[in-house]
């Protein structure tokens, strides 16, 4: 099973269990920007009040997958997650619990559905990739996050993006200065 088949298989299982989800992380920055290699897939899921039915999920995924039954606290993001591994490929899928953070709630409401291989898959929007990646960049100064933002801005072009929405959330997160710098950098590179 390829990495992409694993991602689509997990998405199909969540659909079957009627667990609302969206793909975030590098899979979402890839579809809105410039694709790069990724060794995992991050989903945000709206946890049912009864929790994720791990037994059913494991059954749907099949014997090639290992689902950790523990809901783990992730210290870096401060969110709860389930980890699914596909041992024969080394590929990992993380299911993050939708947090109460206002932007996380909003980006989940704005998620978009796309058809891939006759299967509908939910993604966060390009605007939300930018907002979230800038938020990360402000926190940990990881070059990868900054590059992903520039890739999305350049590929989508600022004319297509909802800049009012992006600026609103960057103001909320006190990251507006970084956004404007990156927009300016993108404009400058277009002009050369």
């Amino acid at each position, binding site marked *: 099973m390829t990495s992409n088949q694993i991602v689509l298989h997990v998405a199909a299982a969540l659909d079957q269990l009627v667990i609302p989800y969206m793909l975030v992380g590098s899979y979402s920055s890839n579809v809105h*920007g410039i694709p790069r290699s990724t*060794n995992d897939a991050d989903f945000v899921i709206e946890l049912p009040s009864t929790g994720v039915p791990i037994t059913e999920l494991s059954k749907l995924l099949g014997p090639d997958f290992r689902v950790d039954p523990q809901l783990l606290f992730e*210290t870096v993001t401060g969110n709860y997650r389930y980890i699914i591994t596909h041992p*024969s*490929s*080394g590929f990992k899928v993380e299911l993050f619990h939708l947090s109460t953070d206002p932007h996380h709630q909003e980006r989940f409401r704005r998620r978009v559905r*796309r058809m*891939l291989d006759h299967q509908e898959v939910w993604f966060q929007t390009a605007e939300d990739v930018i907002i979230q990646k800038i938020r990360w960049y402000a926190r940990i100064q990881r070059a990868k996050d900054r590059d992903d933002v520039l*890739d999305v801005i350049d590929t989508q072009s600022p004319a297509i993006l909802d800049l009012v929405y992006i600026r609103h959330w960057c103001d909320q997160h006190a990251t507006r200065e970084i956004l404007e710098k990156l927009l300016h950098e993108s404009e400058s*590179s277009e002009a050369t």
Partner: protein
Amino acid sequence: MQPHYNTPMPSANDDIPALAASIRRDRVERARRMTFAQKFYAGGDLFDAACEVTKAGIRHQHPDFTESQVLAELRRRLALQESRELRNLTQRLAP
């Protein structure tokens, strides 16, 4: 998908920033020509290809390894990379 290099390459007299800008423009143009689905599949395909190259390297380094040992070594290297990234993140988050 075969890459298409539409942007003229700068001459040897041009400076490095001009070359970098040219490569950048080319990458953006190629990404704009890709469909949503092509971009979805590209990330996973790149990872799978990188794993195959790594496994070939492990086989070359350890010709006596069985396929399950090759896979175990690949997983060990992936875990090493992940723990290194996590350590870097944790250090950056530290007050």
